[in-house]
Structures are given as C-alpha cells and as structure tokens.
C-alpha cells in the first residue's frame, strides 16, 4: 500500500494499473492546475489533462529517469507539449504556446469570472517567452523543485535557476508602472509591501 514513487512507476511499467492509479492520484490535480493556468478554460484543461495521462500511460514503459529526468518533470513536459500542440492545432498560422500568447480579444471562451484576472496576469507575463513564463508559474504558483522544472522545460537545473531569477528581475523592471495601476484596482492589496 505504501509503495514509493519508484516502486509505483516500476509496477505501472509492468502493467499494474492500480499503481498507475496511485500515481494519477498524486499528479492529477497538479497537472490539471498547470494546464488550467496555461489555458484559462476549464473544459479545455480537462480535455488536455485526459490526453496527458493517456500519453503518459502509453509511453510509460519508455520512461527512464536517466533519460527523461524526474517522473514529475516528465509528466509536466508532456503537459507543456500537449498545451502547445493544442494551440498550434487551433491556430496553426500563429506562434502561440498558451493562452497568454492570445490577443486579449480572443478570450471569448474563457470563464467570465476569471477574465479580468487573466488580463492582469497577461499584463505581467505576456512580455516573457513561454519557457520563462512556465518557470515562473511552476516555481511561484506550484512550488515545484528546480529538478522537476528542469525536466519539464528540457533545461539544466542551473539554467532554470538563472532564467527564473532573471525573469523576476525583468518583471520587476517591466511592471513598476503597471503595478501601480493594478494595485489601484485590487483593494485587497492594501500595502504594496505586504503585511
């Protein structure tokens, strides 16, 4: 019952679906959340989450930690690529990796209640390349370790750390003026310096 992740992976690779179910229990919400961040649409996130786990199941026997890095990172890599596939399939002539790359008027299908929130996030993150954006989302919102992030984006851990710190620096510089406007419309941010 209390198998380690490596044991669960090994068992899953040998056909134990219950073991895969346990891995699913660990990662379903995390991956769904990550995909939701990148699509901002619940149904699309559910659809793509389904595809991610089916891809994982199909390719499980080919997964090795040596080649693909951590299991979590491998799953996140599949999730990233699935989101990119999605946007490239529906917008084949545009260079779009996720919902952040969409022009704001293209959000007709998004959940209305999150619309304004997304626009603010877009304002912050739109200027960054998607890989840097993903590193920020995975680190700040999902609190993933650098090892996982590195496997997810196909970079080294050191490279990810450098990109993360530089991205935050860039954000700080780029958003100083925007932030003032944002704070005006977010009353719960009573102090720009936090509590």
């Amino acid at each position, binding site marked *: *019952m*209390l198998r*380690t992740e490596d044991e669960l992976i090994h068992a899953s690779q*040998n*056909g*134990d*679906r*219950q*073991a*895969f*179910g346990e891995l*699913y*229990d660990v990662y*379903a*919400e995390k991956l*769904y*959340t990550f995909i*939701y*961040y990148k699509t*901002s649409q619940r*149904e699309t996130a*559910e*659809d793509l989450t*389904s*595809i991610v786990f*089916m*891809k994982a199941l*199909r*390719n499980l026997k080919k997964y090795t930690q040596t080649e*693909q890095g951590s299991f979590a990172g491998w799953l996140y*890599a*599949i999730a990233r*690529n699935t989101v990119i*596939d999605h946007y*490239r*399939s*529906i917008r084949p002539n545009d260079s779009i990796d996720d919902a952040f790359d969409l022009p704001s008027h293209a959000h007709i299908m998004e*959940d209305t*209640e999150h619309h304004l929130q997304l626009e*603010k996030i877009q304002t*912050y993150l739109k200027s960054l390349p998607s890989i840097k954006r993903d590193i920020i989302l995975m680190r*700040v*919102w999902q609190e993933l370790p650098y090892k996982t992030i590195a496997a997810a984006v*196909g970079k080294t851990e050191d490279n990810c*750390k450098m990109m*993360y*710190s530089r991205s*935050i*620096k860039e*954000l*700080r510089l780029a*958003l*100083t003026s925007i*932030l003032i406007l944002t704070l005006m419309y*977010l009353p719960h*941010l009573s102090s*720009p*310096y*936090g*509590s």
Partner: protein
Amino acid sequence: MDPKLKDILKDLYTLDPSLEAQEAELLPVLEALLKLKPETPLDANFTAELRRKLLTPSSHSSSLAMSSPAFHKFAFAGLGGLITLLIAVPVTYKLSQSSTGLSDFSLSSLSGLPKITNLGQAAFGTLSSDASSANGALSERSSTTVGMGGGGTAASAVPAPTSDTKLMAPGMPIDPYYGDVIEYVYTYKGEALDLSGVSDAVYKKTGGLNIGNSGKDLTRDTFGPLNISAFKGAKLQTFNVKQDADNGYTIYVDPENGVISINGNQGLWGYSSGDYIPLTESDIMSNEDAIATTNKFLADYDIDTTGFGAPVVDDRGVVYALSQPVGMRYIPDTVNITYPLLLEGQPAYNGDGSAYGLFAMVNMRTKAVVSLTINVASTYDKSSYELERDSAEILNLASHGGLYYYPMEGVTKTVEIELGTPEVILTSHYTYTNNNSELLFIPALSFPVTKNSDTDPVYSDHIVIPLVQSVIDEARAQPPITIYNENVKMAE
C-alpha cells in the same frame, strides 16, 4: 510578511544575492503574482471518471454478470418491460460499533428509494456539455472537446458503412513521440440493428444521499470548545470515520454528492512499505471467488445491493499480466468488481463502457475487500429526448471507435478490431452550468470488442455510442483535434 513570500525571497536571494537590495521593489511584484494566482475549478466527477478510465486496461475483460441473456441479447422489447419497474437504490451501512467515537451516529437512514420525477420532453436543455452553448450555439464551444474519446469531426467525412465493407477509422491517441501511428479498422460483426424500441428517457442526478436527521444530530453536538449549533444553519457536508484496527476500514461519506467510500486499513493490504513481494500465478483468485468475497463483505456490513445489477468482474490487469512473458509479469494485487446502478431497470455505465455504481476492489493477497465505492443518489429527474434511430448512422459512428475520435497524421500501421452486437445501456454524460457539472445518464449502445489486437489493443473493451440526437449533433459540430505533432519534442 507572508511565509510564502519569505520563502520566495529567500530562494531568489540564494540564486542572486544582488536581489536582496531590491526587496522593496520585488515584494509588490511577488505579492501581486501570488494574489493573482487563478482558482482552479477541478471537478471531482471529472477526476474520478478519468481515473476509472485510466485504470481500465487495454482489452480482454471478463464480464461474469453479463451472463444474463437479457444483457447479452439485443432485446429492446424486453427492456421496454423492464423500464416500467421502479428499482430501489437503498444503501444501508450501519456503524454500530462504538470504536469510532461516533457510536450514536447511525447511517441506517441512508436507505431509501430513488425518487424519479418525470419532467416531460427536453427538460434539461440541449444536453450540450458546455453551458455557453446551452441555447444551441454549439460552435461556440472550445475546439477541443476531447474528453476520453477525442476530438469530434463531421460524420459526413466518413462514408456510411455497408454490411460487408471494413470500416476505416482512426483510433485513440497514440504515442506522439515514439513508435507507430496506428489507424484502427473497426468492423461490425453483430446482428442487424433495430433501434425502434429504445427508450428515449434521460436521467439527471438531482439529489445526493438522504441521511435523514443524522446530519442535523451531529451538528447539534459540541466538540471540545466548539459548539457547532452556534453556527446557525450549518449542515453536515462530508465526514470520515475510521476503525482503529489494522484490519479495519476507514469510511468516507459525501452525502451532497452521493458518494460513500470505504477503504481498508494497512493490514488488509498484506504488506507494508519495503516488504512488497509481487503475487504469483497461484495467488490469483477466480472470478467466482472474487464475487463471493465481495458479496460476503456486503452482507457482513448490511450493504443492500437491490438497486444494483449483477456484478461485473474486471480482471483485465490479471489477464494482461498473464499475457506477458514469464519474468516480465506483474500481477496486480487487486481485482475489481462493479455492480452497475439500475435506473428503471437499465444499467448505468461510464463513457468507456465500464459499469457505474457500486465499485469494489478485492485484494488477492489477503482475500479481502480493500475498497468499496458506492455512487448513489436519492433523486433523479427524467426527461425524454429525440434519439438517433438510423442504424446506418450509428454504425458509422461506431466505425470511428466512438462518438469522438482523433484524426491521425502519418499513419504507419493499421490494426483490425471487430465489434459485436451492442447492448442498450445508460451512459454517463456531463453538462456544465455556472462552473458546476451535472451528471446525466443518457441512452446509448455499448458495442463489445469481440476481437482485439494482441500487440496493439484498443484502449477500451467496449465502444459506447450515445443515442441522443443533440449530443451527436454537438460532436459533429466539433472541429477535429490533431494529436500527432512531430514539430514538438519531449525535451529541447
């Protein structure tokens, strides 16, 4: 300062000490980032259904419960008679032992008949899976309504089948990064279809589990310094109780969603971390023994199954393991048994053809039930909907391997699959309104896979085709999604 902010800053300073001098400017940026983090409305029904589908291995299922001729035959006339029956879904689970600390709390009041209210025609709207298209604007939906079936496409793109032609269709999403791109060829080998007698009733789950006054009693209690009754109008939502024994159970009850989940404690699994020894062939239980074990458990704990159909054994994990070369076999610890929920006599299934209702897992190591999940609701609404009754069109959809499918690019291999005579079932269907999902059961045909591939089996052992016209129309309105994309690599 928020501890999370502190952690982020500490992390950044470790990476780049020069940032520490910019803390005053960094703080509002990070604080805003955290506060703007979106809420993620993960739907419990979605995760549960996806899990169930993922845990259904490739093919080779054994369905003892389907031995009933009524389920084997394509006998719509007989089902018409069954529909007049009102079937109870009583669930009685008594926590009469005092070791839980809630000895006064009895779930015996969980018993009860599901009340089915007939609302007439098309009372649930279009049955679109998207609230935004509830008024018929199907094209406004996201272009990737994939679910487990795949992206939709225009049915007219595929020629109607003839009785002796093979039906060419793309299969489920195949590994986009490795191996062959497979196209499945579905050939219908069953009896001639006659859809004229199929009931057009659609059922919507409207109420959860009726726990009577038990919940109110609990909310009148005082727990230490907390007097729950001080919170006016508070209602019991979910609760856990656990037997304090290795071989006991933990019970989770979610009355609002109508879910009871009973899970075995550590001792019932037969090993602890670090001493796991895989099962051998001699440990495998027969399906009869697995059912007998489950029935005994249900009887021992007063769990009434009269609202559920005959048990269906899912031992595909075992069958799959035995199909592997000796030395490569990994025999799962558990075998699954499902008793499908009956709604006015019709069995309810999930979209992949697996049964919906009372789901048990028997551990073959300890010969014990280690998990039991009961989906039960006290009330359903019922409404009639126009059905697709053109058998050629239904076979055309079945030829795709489902209502939704994935067009594949660069096909490198073709695999032939055969389908047998379908069974009339109710299949789950979700609609979304105001960020809430609603569970419906709609008429469908479940085609059994009678001949699968040994090397590249299709994912499910049944192909389920919903019969409601508006659901089919919505699927037709979906543009296809292309899964295979060789331009995107796993790692850079």
